[in-house]
Structure formats: C-alpha cells, structure tokens
C-alpha cells in the first residue's frame, strides 16, 4: 500500500497490542564516557556507534558500558558537513535522514572525500558520497558480481564495468552515528569499476567483502532534496562515473558515419561502373603559333545517355609556350550553349637545382549534366611564346560520361566533419575522466605532482 509519502508506509496499528506512542523518534541520551558531555543517539534500535560532539570520541552503544572505540580529539568543526546531521531529504521518492558523516582518505595519496550515511527505517541505509564536487548515491548490494580474471572488467547481470581505481581507504574523521563500530584510522582495500552513470565497488577488510553500486547524481538534485542554501563545491573535471552525453552521442554518430561511408562508397562504385567513358569525338586542327584564330567549328557529334558529363581534352605541342582555347559546346537542336575556356602550357628548364618543369602538354575541363543529343564545338584559339613559328596542330578529344571522383571525396568530407568534431569532444571528456585513474586507457602526460599513486 502506498503511504503518506514521508518515510515509507504509515498505516494504523491493528494488532491487539497496547497503543505505542506516536510523534518524534525516541532518542536516547547518555553521558560520554570520555568527557562527560551529553550524547544523543537518534536511532538506538539500529545504530552501533556514535560520535560525541564535544570530544569526538567514537562510542560503542551496543551495551550500556558505552565503551570508547576511538578516543579521538580532533578540532571541533575541522570538517563541516554541507548537509547537517539530522536533515531529511527526498531522493527517488523516498525520504532519507542524514545520520552519519565520514571523511575517508586514500592511504597512498592522502586525497580525501566525504560520505554521508542516510537512513530510512523501512529501506535501510544508503550513502551519499561527495568527491571533487561530484555526488553519488550508493547502496550496498547482496549480489556478487563476477570479477573476470585476467581482465580489467567486472560483470553484474548484463552490465560490464571497467576497473578505475584500486587502493586503500582509511577513516579520517567521523560525526554522527553508524550501523557498525567505527574505528578512526581503520582501513579497507577498495576497488572501483565504472560503467557511467554507475560505479560498482567493493571494500574488503579481514572479515568480509562488501559490494555496492553507486549512481551519479547531479549536485543540483542533492541541493534541492536537502534544501542546501550555501553554495556547493564546484564539480572539478569529469567524475569517474559521470554520464557524458557527448560520449553516448559519439557511439550513435560513429555508427551512422560508417553507414554513410558505406552508402557513398557503394554508390560511387556502382555509378562509376555504369559510366560510358566513351570518346564522342576526336580530331586534330591546325594553328599558327603566336596568332589568334576565331573561325573554328567542329563537325556535329552525338552525345549518348540522358544526362552525363562531358570532358574536353586539349593536347598541344607547348614547350615553354602556351596555347589557349575559348569556346562553347553548342546543342545542334536547340542552340543551348556551354561556354568554356582552357589553357595548355608547359615550361621547363635547368638551373642550379637541376631540371624543372611546370604544366603539361594537355589539359582538360569538365562540363556537368549535359543532356544527350547532337552537338558541335565553336573554338577561338590563341597561342604565345612560341619560338618555332611553323604551323602546327592541336588535338581535341570530347569524352562522354567519364568517371568522376571529386563528388565522392567532397561528400566523404562533408559527412565526416561532424563525427570528427564529436569524436574530439568525446575523447577530451573521456581523457579527463580517466586522468584520475591508474588504469587510464589513454597515454598520460607525466606530471610533476600526481594526485594518485
């Protein structure tokens, strides 16, 4: 049954037992064994240790002896939890109360992070972990993931997680109450595996291995849930299991990019295969070097295929001289004109570096999408720099439906611009994510001071 929505179900007591008192939780107070100050235990039915607010000793509350677990005098207020103890907040439709606060550090690097113990009497315990401004909602699990031996992967159900860090964590500072006997300075071996937005971790001490799953939570959500009004710590870099939409986009875009490459390539091969590559007309024409001529008209020739390109090739005996053609391709039936101009030039010589040359003895131009039909060419020619003025000749070749490559490479480029950009941004994000890991798959830039081992 759905309850009133604050903690969990709140239903009237129907058993025959005497009425239980309602209202605020029954707290228990006692004198701190170390310093005598009054210590309040908010959940005596569940907590096993509590920290004295005055002297910061950790007290065992499982029996009335109230044995000291850690006699621990730290500066009062050395750490101030951003979510005060006792605050209740609603996360994922359930109400949680912050009952404990732990600061833990990595043994090797002394880098530390905060953990808030959350409690709900119906659902048990959860943790909120804050690290570099990144927040995670953590629950202990009973299922045992499979650490795939010899690899950096662990598997739970269908998901695979990649190892991110291994190390030893030590309890540095505590406030509030806990469901085990906390000892300041106690250590566990911990390993984290990531599969954003989740992190799969285990902690191992002499007695047991405990697995947990963390889910990344935006700092905003935490601030709203617990009504935090003071500014939260700014998130630095990319959290280990912080979801990166750009990386997810890259996966999809990469797939489609390959689809488009395949489509373009197959289309190019197919269309190229269908090209006629036919010579529609070829002829030689005389010209007098270093003069102009404006009276050349070719005979009529036929261009096949509904719509295709026309390649006109000019070959001229240029040698440190040039040959220019200005003309038009004219449709004999309707007079449509396709004007063009082309220069054939070739220069060569010898200097201190040896032989050099520039240009070629033939050059061509391409006219796009010319309809089939009967055509002829009108040509104006001109040449210059000829040393030998004896009349000469040039060759004109008209080719129909030649294979084109320019479109293919141009389209390859257009279709690759966005993927390249997205890939770069994704990689930048992932490199940043893994920069805090000892298991980064990216080559690292050595730094003078390293935050991890």
């Amino acid at each position, binding site marked *: 049954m759905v309850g009133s929505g604050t903690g969990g179900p709140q239903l009237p007591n129907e058993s025959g037992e005497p009425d239980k008192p309602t209202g605020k939780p029954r707290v228990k107070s006692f004198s701190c064994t170390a310093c005598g100050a009054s210590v309040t235990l908010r959940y005596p039915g569940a907590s096993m240790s509590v920290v004295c607010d005055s002297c910061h000793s950790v007290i065992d509350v499982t029996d009335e002896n109230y044995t000291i677990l850690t006699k621990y005098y730290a500066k009062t207020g050395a750490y101030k939890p951003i979510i005060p103890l006792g605050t209740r907040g609603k996360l994922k439709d359930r109400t949680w109360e912050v009952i404990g606060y732990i600061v833990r550090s990595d043994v090797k690097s002394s880098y530390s992070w905060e953990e808030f113990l959350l409690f709900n009497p119906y659902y048990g315990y959860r943790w909120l972990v804050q690290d570099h401004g990144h927040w995670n909602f953590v629950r202990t699990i009973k*299922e045992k993931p499979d650490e795939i031996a010899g690899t950096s992967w662990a598997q739970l159900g269908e998901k695979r997680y990649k190892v991110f860090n291994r190390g030893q964590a030590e309890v540095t500072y505590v406030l509030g109450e806990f469901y085990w006997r906390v000892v300041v300075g106690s250590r566990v071996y911990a390993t984290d595996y990531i599969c954003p937005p989740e992190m799969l971790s285990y902690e191992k001490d002499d007695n047991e291995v405990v697995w947990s799953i963390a889910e990344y939570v935006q700092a905003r959500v935490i601030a709203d849930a617990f009504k935090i009004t003071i500014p939260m710590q700014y998130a630095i870099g990319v959290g280990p299991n912080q979801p990166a939409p750009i990386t997810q986009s890259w996966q999809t875009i990469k797939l489609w990019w390959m689809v488009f490459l395949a489509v373009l390539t197959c289309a190019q091969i197919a269309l190229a295969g269908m090209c006629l590559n036919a010579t529609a007309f070829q002829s030689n024409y005389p010209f007098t070097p270093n003069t102009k001529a404006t009276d050349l008209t070719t005979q009529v020739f036929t261009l096949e295929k509904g719509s295709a390109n026309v390649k006109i090739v000019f070959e001229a005996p240029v040698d440190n001289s040039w040959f220019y053609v200005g003309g038009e391709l004219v449709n004999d039936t309707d007079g449509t004109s396709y004007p063009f101009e082309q220069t054939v030039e070739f220069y060569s010589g010898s200097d201190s570096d040896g032989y050099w040359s520039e240009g070629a003895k033939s050059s061509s131009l391409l006219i796009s999408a010319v309809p089939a039909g009967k055509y002829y060419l009108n040509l104006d020619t001109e040449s210059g720099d000829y040393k030998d003025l004896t009349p000469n000749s040039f060759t004109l070749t008209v080719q129909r439906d030649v294979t084109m490559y320019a479109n293919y490479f141009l389209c390859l480029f257009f279709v690759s611009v966005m993927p390249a950009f997205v890939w770069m941004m994704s990689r930048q994000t992932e490199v940043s994510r893994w920069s805090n890991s000892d298991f980064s798959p990216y080559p690292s830039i050595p730094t003078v001071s390293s935050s991890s081992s």
Partner: protein
Amino acid sequence: MITLNCPSCGASVNFVSKASVFAVCSFCKSTLVRQDMDLSKVGTMSDLQDDLTPLQIGTTGMFGKEKFELAGRLKVAYADGFWNEWFTVFGNEKLGWLAEAQGFYALCFPAQCEVPSKETLRPGAYVELGPAGTFQVEDVHDVRCLFSEGELPLNAKQGRESTSVDLTGDDRKMATIEYATDLTRLFVGEYQDFDEFHFQNLRHIDGW
C-alpha cells in the same frame, strides 16, 4: 487457528500455524510451550529495548504471488549486530522465515540437503546446495537469541545459542544454515526489495 489460554494470566493465546510449539503471551510475556492443546509456562521474556523494525506480528505481505502473515519473531544478536527472523505463515500451510536486517529482506523456506560441517565454512567459500545451486558464504556468526514474540515453530528461549551461516547465490538467491547443538537446519530463499513485498499492517515508527 487454535486459541488457548495462557496458564499464567489467562489471556487468549492464538496459534495460526499447527507447526508452532512455542509462544510468548502478549500480555504477561510468559514464554509458553505447546503440546497438542496444552500450554505450559517455561519462563518470562524480558522486554525489548530500542526496537526499530517496521514489521510486527500480524503484518501481511506478498512473496511472488503468495500471501503470507508474520506470526512470530526471533531477534538474534551476534558480535557485530543483530537481525530479526520473522516466522511467516502462508495460506497453504507453507512455513517460511523472513530475515530482516539493515533494510535487507529475504524470505526463505526449509530445505533438505547435505550441508558441509561448520568448521569448513569461511566467508568466500563455495557451497553446493543440491538443486538450489551454488552459493558463496557471506558470513559465519555465532548468534544468541535475544528476544522472541508471537508464535514460533521451535523452542526459542532467551539465550539459545547457535551458529548461523549466510550464503548468497546467483541473482538474488540466498541461503542460511543454522548449526545448533541439537540440530542443523538449512533454509533456501531469495532477497526481495521492501516495496516488492507490498506489506500491509506495518508497525508505526515514531517520526516516520
């Protein structure tokens, strides 16, 4: 349901299950042992301090498609804490136990299978439990009965000692082996989330 009278104070003592041999009178807290229709007092149950469970005698819930009711409770303590074992009674006379600890709830049923001896079991060890499959040992605890209430299918006197071994299997399967001086018992079952039980008639918790 059988109703008998408490030999100490005369109050009604209900037995929902034929298998129950032990009960605690809810009014005078006498611990009673049942034989057929006879009840005899064997002691008195001292009060429980600091109880924070959301469950109570009479709470009902669902396990899969079957409905059950909590008829009794056994609270056991060990070195690092405690948990509750609730005696669950199903409609078809099936009996089970609902283990409740730190927000984890598991329902298990008695099973018959060869179990290894207590000494061989250590956290991390693998155990084959017949058709139920392979399980891994989570914990081995020496436990002591701290408190009991309602009706129970075993003599749960205060201070009764045993060794309890918790195991987890694939998916959410779990198992418990209880090694007591007089007998060894095996239970196999599953973890389930609180919401999946659809509990009704829960105990009211102050402030929640």
